[in-house]
């Protein structure tokens, strides 16, 4: 049992500013990844760490990964390119993911996508003109009775409307 605490009202999705993290030295990156080497499937853990630290996995990172996990750089690239979550180019600080799976299609997600694409002036996946938000598709967020579902900076939204989504872009 606990008392609810006053928090910021999360309905207004927090915009993130561009990544201003200081770049890391090679030794620091190695230190960041070191704990992953003891884990089963360690390289996947390591890639996730790099994603959350830098937003993408650079060519230099791939060389370090290859060295740590005793793989060729080509093998590392093969692993990274297999998974949708891993990116090899710098990403905008904000994300919008729109569910386009069947249950959301049944609740007219195709119309939502069209409206957002019209607003953006380009087809998804893409970035907003200001380069601040990456807009992409996701295959099911597990909110299937209440579609269309979207995810804005990690926060889930059911019954999403075009106006509501565009207001956050």
């Amino acid at each position: 049992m606990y008392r609810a605490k006053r928090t910021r009202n999360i309905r207004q999705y927090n915009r993130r500013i561009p990544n201003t993290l200081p770049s890391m030295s090679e030794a620091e990156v190695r230190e960041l990844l070191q704990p992953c080497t003891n884990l089963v499937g360690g390289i996947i853990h390591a890639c996730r760490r790099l994603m959350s630290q830098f937003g993408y996995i650079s060519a230099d990172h791939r060389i370090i990964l290859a060295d740590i996990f005793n793989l060729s750089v080509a093998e590392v690239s093969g692993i990274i390119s297999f998974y949708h979550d891993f990116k090899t180019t710098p990403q905008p600080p904000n994300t919008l993911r729109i569910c386009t799976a069947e249950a959301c299609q049944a609740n007219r997600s195709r119309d939502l996508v069209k409206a957002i694409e019209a607003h953006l002036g380009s087809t998804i996946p893409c970035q907003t003109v200001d380069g601040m938000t990456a807009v992409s598709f996701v295959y099911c967020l597990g909110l299937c009775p209440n579609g269309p579902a979207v995810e804005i900076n990690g926060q889930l939204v059911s019954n999403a409307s075009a106006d509501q989504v565009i207001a956050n872009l």
Partner: protein
Amino acid sequence: MTTAYISNDSFAHALGRSAVMEALATQDIDCVDVGSYGLAWLEPLIEIDSPSGRVAFGPVSADVVSDLAALINAGANYDHHSSFLGDIHEHPFIKKQQRLVFRNVGYAALTDTPTYTTLKTVLERDPHDLINELEVSGLRGRGGAGFPAHIKWRTVADTPADQRYIVCNADEGDSGTFSDRMLMEGDPDALIEGMAIAGYACGASHGYIYLRSEYPYALHELKRSISRAYDHKLLGNNIFDSEFSFDLQVFVGAGAYICGEETSLLESLEGKRGQIRAKPPLPAIAGLFNKPTLVHNVITLASVPSLFDLGGEQYGELGVAPSCGTIPFQIAGNVKYGGLIELEFGHTVRELVEDYGGGTRSGRPFRSVQIGGPLGAYLSEAELDTPLTYEAMQTIGAGIGHGGLVVFDDTVDLREQAEYAFEFCEIESCGKCTPCRIGSVRGKELVQGLPQTSNVEADIQLIHELCDVMENASLCQMGGMTPIPVRSALERFPEDFR
């Protein structure tokens, strides 16, 4: 002083739970987090203690919270409030359900200390005895294929090895399914206890839960429950002072539908590209790191404690043999009352779509329901009276899959859906074999081209031939089952293609 039990499920988070918490913070009300009862259109749902037991309200907003608080403080009657639902167990959506796997979800506080009493009792029994009881229960895998669980357990147990693994498939990738997520967010201990029991029966001392990255709340609950189980010595060495030790870890996937297929999942867990392995060898003989590995879906493993509580024989009497027991169905898409419905096998599709679902949310006429995710068949009105058993569904060329039903109204264009089935296969194919990797692209182009083509019948014939190749020559069911939605759409809704 009042206590409020608040759904902490993703459903509630996506429907404004944070605003409700904000409002609760201003009131003299204690909060307890619980899972969701699965009435998705009533989230965020809260219950409060009353003299006659808990009473539910939903959907709850900040305004509802202040209304309620005012009524409670004034000692007034809240039964007439528009969001008053009364005793949730008497709600028509819940009342006739047979909840075994989901017996605690929605009710039990997420902070309750687990006891794992079923694990404690089975640890006093012979492992072979447990597998025999599992056989009597007739439990089959809930991940999609419906393979008898006891065969896998026995194979893992009987294959000589220095190390065996229990792997939980929590990659729930199918659209229209969310039972794994709800279970992990609402009663993760059922899964952990089920995995430990499987570990004891199969002689495995390590378990992994392969969770998809789209489920951050499930990850949070799993991690919390696993560390609490370690704290209470319900995981780790010499559980309940027995010889049995079991370690459990969560592994988060990285966005790949195909990693739900068990061999692809194992490759991914080993830190590789999630490419399919050829079978044989079966994972039960040579799985993770080539050791015997029991791979089961979340619901299969979470069924285990309630199954042993009930007794194998009694469990086996539920349903329509050989489709035994209960399964959490999930009804979603264009439906008025969507959510989770745990029932024994044998109820008809119509009961779920009409009695539970209440028809379409848009109010337009029903047109189709897709059962079993993206690789499942599109059914028409004429097939709604089919009972939901593995056998009956097979006779109409469909499957239950993971129990998801996605309802469409009459605005659906089945040609578009067939095109999407190919497109999905194109995006998610692991790329190992040609029928799937190339076939999906060609299939998409063919279906896309139908409105413009000069010879529709010839192209449809070509689509059928392509489906034959994919069905017969694909290495796994990704390519092998993509023809199911395509063909079912072509056969049942031919007018959409011409």
